[in-house]
């Protein structure tokens, strides 16, 4: 029934519409900021939640086709990361009511989803049966990408921190700087997100390491990159808890680490096996 209903559009079409909602949220926030007014938090939440619902539809259709979590190529990895970050925002946004986080989330989600949809090469090849029917491996990948979603949100709160810190240090408090959340609020949320992300990535690596011991991965690079990302975030957490990495340095570290983690996704994707095969995507665009 649900499958029939969703089949009126292809998975990519659902994902394009979802991206449209994220873009609409971004446009709403940008217009409000240009007019130096607060955007409607409820409307922003509704736009992001709608985009999320539609993205669920697209990813669900994709998962039905692949009989598993859709993580078979760069396009799906970006979509899944965006989906993870949005899941978390919908919880955090409703609980902590962080001013401007919705705007920044919509901007990042729009960027991740539109870029992944706009580059056909990312979805032209696809690894069939990527997890070989191994649910533990699927769990490992899903947890890892969910942690990337958490780190995406962490990068956003870090960016907000940097802007707030800049505005306070340079005494620029008017205009849209006045809508930024407080330093303490952003720092506490960032610390919680970092801790949550590290726990998720640790769990993912723990699950993955069991599989790697049984069946060593084809690419050492993939393992090295994944462990490097984990180590970098764990180190950042340790230094933050010891008070050695604080304020803007901590925020910069979280932002740069996320960019590095995003870039490393390409290595992780290409290092996975089996090797990707050309995919006839019937659901273009």
């Amino acid at each position, binding site marked *: 029934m649900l499958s029939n209903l969703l089949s009126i559009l292809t998975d990519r079409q659902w994902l394009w519409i979802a991206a449209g909602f994220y873009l609409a949220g971004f446009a709403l926030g940008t217009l409000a900021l240009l007019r130096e007014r607060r955007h409607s938090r409820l409307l922003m939440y509704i736009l992001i939640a709608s985009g999320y619902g539609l993205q669920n539809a697209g990813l669900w259709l994709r998962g039905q086709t692949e009989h598993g979590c859709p993580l078979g190529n760069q396009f799906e990895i970006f979509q899944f990361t965006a989906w993870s970050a949005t899941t978390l925002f919908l919880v955090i946004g409703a609980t902590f009511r962080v001013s401007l986080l919705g705007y920044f989330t919509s901007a990042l989600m729009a960027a991740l989803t539109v870029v992944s949809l706009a580059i056909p090469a990312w979805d032209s090849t696809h690894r069939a049966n990527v997890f070989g029917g191994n649910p533990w491996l699927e769990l490992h990948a899903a947890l890892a990408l969910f942690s990337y979603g958490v780190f995406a949100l962490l990068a956003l709160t870090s960016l907000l921190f940097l802007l*707030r810190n800049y505005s*306070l*240090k340079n*005494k620029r*408090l*008017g205009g849209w700087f*006045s809508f*930024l*959340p*407080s*330093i*303490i*609020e952003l*720092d506490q949320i960032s610390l919680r997100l970092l801790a949550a992300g590290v726990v998720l990535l640790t769990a993912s690596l723990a699950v993955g390491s069991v599989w790697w011991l049984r069946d060593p991965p084809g690419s050492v690079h993939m393992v090295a990159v994944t462990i490097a990302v984990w180590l970098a975030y764990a180190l950042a957490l340790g230094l*933050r808890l010891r*008070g*050695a990495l*604080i*304020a*803007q*340095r901590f925020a910069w570290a979280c932002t740069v680490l996320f960019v590095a983690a995003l870039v490393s996704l390409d290595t992780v994707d290409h290092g996975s096996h089996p090797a990707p095969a050309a995919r006839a995507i019937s659901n273009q665009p």
Partner: protein
Amino acid sequence: MSEAGGIFFHLGASHHTAPLALREKLALTPEKTAALGARIGAAGEMREWAVLSTCNRVEFYGVAGSPAAIDHLQAEFCALLECSPADFAGAARRTFGLEALRHLLVVAAGLDSQMLGETEIFGQMKDAYAGALHRGTAGPVLNRAFQKTFQAAKFVRTHTAITEGQVSVASVAVDLALKIFGGLRAVRVLLLGAGEIGEKTARAFRSRGAEALTVASRRLEHAMELAQALAAAALPFEHAPGRLAEFDIVLCATSAPGVVLTHDAVAAAIRRRPARPLFFIDLALPRDVEPTVTRLPNVFLYNLDDLAKIADENRAARENEVTRAQALVTEKAGALWPRLEPLCDSKTVNGKRWSAAAHSAG
């Protein structure tokens, strides 16, 4: 109360027309207001009335059966307060009907306040209305006028930026602290110096939720005296630099001739609490805090000039909104008056248009 109808009026003096010395004489205490009520009641032609008495204005709003009733009110008011009727008449303004209603809305929205857009007047006006209800001097006209005025004032506040941004140095300091700490309940505030500006700022912090307040002054007895007044703790001045790490916000307002808190002292404090911001508000002249502390991570410093500049910018932003707010008030008054006018029955008095009759009598 108002059964026979009459004129809706406003009578009063404010900071626009009355100097401080006169306003001091015109201040009405609750006891004097009650005494005034007894005097006016005897005349019987004042159908409804309420009085708004603040440090910047004393204004009557009401419904009078005749212009003479307003004269009587003015005379009794001056007699009660032993104020020269000529002095009051020189400073007083009377408006009637729609003009009086518009004035009521303008005052409630903070557009007539000395500190443009301040919201304290709204509470004071609510008190004035509550007083009238308590005395039984509010009737159908004042009930509707005040209730609709409160709604209109809220509308103006939310649909313009007339109340946005703080315009006093103390309030700006509190707002900045909120941008750093989010809330003030859990923050620890240290006041260095027991002077007036420091006390005023500390009170602003206290009124906005700061619970843990400590005062340090070069004369411990002054610190203890102020600490008692603020329900705060006192600290010997010489201990303050060494205990900086225990505080989140430091209000510096000493009259010391040189720097009190050096870069090294602040650096040592932030090293002991690196993850928690330290906010210095330097209200002293010459400055108490070495300006280079802003280079330290998680340390924020604002001096008197910074705060005054922000207050000025906020004031300018409010002034830019005045025209829009005035237009909204005019629109709201214009919409309300047709519903109030029939209750006043104020079109004519003795065959003359009421406002003309009132002006000729007043």
